[in-house]
């Protein structure tokens, strides 16, 4: 980032909420479009408070942009200039995940986007990661069944992204390296998962989600937090693996009735299910794993995406340090320690000036 061009932040907000079968087989919910727009407004206000002057958004026709512009107009009309300038990428809107990929690619190629805030579920994050290269992302979850984006108030994510983008926090501390898992069928182009790859006996994609534990056979996780929801919970309750440590975990699963061990795992919101586990081992970065089951489907971050037959070769490989995220917790801890957001009303009584004068009116 050169000092002549002030850093910009990108926002990719998927307007389509997940409406899959987990609403019926579990108690999942997701954030509706007006609320998504509201999240964007909160993040925008936080970015402005950090000194970000321009934000570039992915265009869409799902209603977020309309709500956001209306919100900004209202606040401007009331004389509260608390948002950065907002522009939209010049790109066609197809209303599919291709828009997300294209927007992430354009933001990477632009060169002046310091970070991308991503609003959506695991699938949206996956699409961004596939294209954003080394541009760090900050995820905001828009549903109950997401394992990758952390669940927190978007204003805080916005503040941390703004501070990191403005260079207020050393990059080594502000940005964290993340793992991902690549899946290839017959050596083709890789599909990626940010949290987990599950192999199940269903050989059709159908309603996509996973909830019938008796079909689970293999599970590969990049990280496994005992607090997370979804397939990774199975691993998280057996041998936790953090987001930051190298390598992941590979598990062999089996129907609960015949397995030597059964773990009761929250595989979807409100759905705690017995899952049979046969064995598990560490999954080092770069080691190629080939599944034992001959045919089935591959679920990426909990959704069946691909199916394979006996004559096809599936390979599964974990990669360390594959992409970067804004480490919101680390940035906010640094901000507190270094008093980045502190400003004193009467400077005479406190000789030390604030490190940054960030609050509105500073």
């Amino acid at each position, binding site marked *: 980032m050169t000092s002549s061009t002030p850093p910009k932040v990108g926002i990719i907000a998927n307007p*389509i909420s997940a409406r899959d*079968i987990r*609403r*019926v087989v579990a108690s999942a919910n997701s954030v*509706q479009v007006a609320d998504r727009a509201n999240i964007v407004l909160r993040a925008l206000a936080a970015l402005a408070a950090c000194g970000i002057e321009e934000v570039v958004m992915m265009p869409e*026709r799902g*209603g977020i942009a309309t709500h956001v512009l209306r919100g900004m107009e209202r606040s401007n009309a009331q004389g509260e200039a608390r948002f950065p300038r907002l522009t939209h990428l010049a790109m066609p809107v197809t209303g599919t995940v291709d828009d997300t990929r294209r927007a992430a690619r354009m933001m990477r190629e632009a060169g002046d986007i310091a970070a991308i805030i991503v609003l959506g579920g695991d699938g949206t994050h996956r699409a961004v990661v596939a294209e954003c290269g080394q541009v760090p992302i900050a995820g905001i979850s828009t549903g109950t069944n997401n394992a990758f984006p952390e669940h927190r108030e978007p204003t805080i994510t916005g503040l941390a992204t703004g501070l990191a983008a403005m260079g207020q926090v050393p990059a080594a501390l502000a940005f964290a390296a993340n793992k991902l898992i690549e899946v290839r069928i017959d050596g083709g182009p890789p599909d990626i998962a940010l949290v987990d790859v599950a192999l199940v006996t*269903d*050989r059709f994609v*159908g309603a996509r989600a996973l909830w019938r534990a008796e079909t689970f056979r293999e599970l590969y996780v990049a990280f496994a937090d005992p607090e997370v929801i979804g397939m990774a919970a199975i691993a998280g309750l057996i041998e936790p693996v953090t987001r930051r440590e190298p390598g992941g975990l590979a598990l062999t699963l089996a129907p609960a009735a015949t397995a030597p061990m059964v773990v009761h795992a929250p595989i979807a919101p409100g759905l705690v299910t017995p899952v049979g586990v046969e064995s598990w081992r560490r999954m080092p970065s770069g080691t190629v794993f080939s599944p034992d089951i001959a045919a089935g489907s591959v679920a990426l971050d909990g959704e069946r995406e691909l199916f394979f037959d006996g004559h096809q070769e599936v390979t599964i490989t974990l990669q360390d340090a594959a992409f970067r995220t804004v480490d919101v917790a680390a940035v906010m801890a640094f901000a507190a320690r270094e008093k980045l957001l502190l400003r004193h009303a009467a400077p005479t009584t406190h000789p030390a000036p604030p490190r940054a004068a960030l609050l509105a009116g500073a």
Partner: protein
Amino acid sequence: MTNNPFPLSRDELLTAYRTMRTIRDFEERLHVEFAKGDIPGFVHLYAGEEACATGIMMHLTDIDRIASTHRGHGHCIAKGVDVHEMMGEIYGKVTGCCRGKGGSMHIADLSKGMMGANGILGAGAPLICGAGLAAKFRGDGGVGLTFFGDGAANQGTVLESMNLAAIWNLPVIFVVENNGYAESTSVEYATAVDSYVDRAAGFGLPGVTVDGTDFFAVYEAAGEIIKRAREGGGPALLECKTVRFFGHFEGDAQTYKAKGENDHNRAHRDCLKLFGARVTAAGVVSEADLALIDREVAALIDDAVETAKGAPLPGARDLTTDVYVAY
């Protein structure tokens, strides 16, 4: 392990294909026959949407009830209504399932749990709440499904019925067949929320959206929703995103569609082609199996049309019969 990767047996897959093919041929043939001017009234064709009716109805038996729409031929066929009686009805002949007095928009067969097509948008929803209440009182495990389009979804009756079904915990399923248009009005213009699932959420009903051109997606989601309702889990909404190959009604110039939209849908979103490709690629069903069904269905539809054409119209004497029901 068998070599069948699908959640249906080979026979069930063939049945699914036969049902979808029967609906398709029925509609394609009506498209041709209607232009000849022998068919009274209006017909609204279901071609393109076959996977919705079929994927859902394969989970039902005759004790389950459905309330259909103005675009109801596919629902009737998938629910097991006799194709000859349907064709007779559409031609207004005494051999029709309603003795030729209803026509396309009033086909009904209570013995099959088919409570009727319906010319009034959103009218099926309150009816199915009644059927659901009856099933609940009888405790027979029956469920009720009402179908409506993306346009009819905005009718007050649909919303009132969702509320009623929710408070009485009825075994009722609301199926939105979202084909993108209500007559010539696009769904983006006419619907204030970005999904009908969000609207159902307002009544505390879970909802699911699936690709309505993917038989397996519809089949699996419908299976879970219907099972849940049968077990007392209550109402839910299923949105099938689908395509309509023809105009709103026969004779519609379709100027509101994008150039090439129908061709694109027929090439890439044809549920029959997608299904055929999937089951043959898996080697469970052969091209020859499907071709045989194609021939049998073609013969069935030919015969249904010829029989209907040759059948008598109702006479003056039939004017007051079968019109009112005495309780």
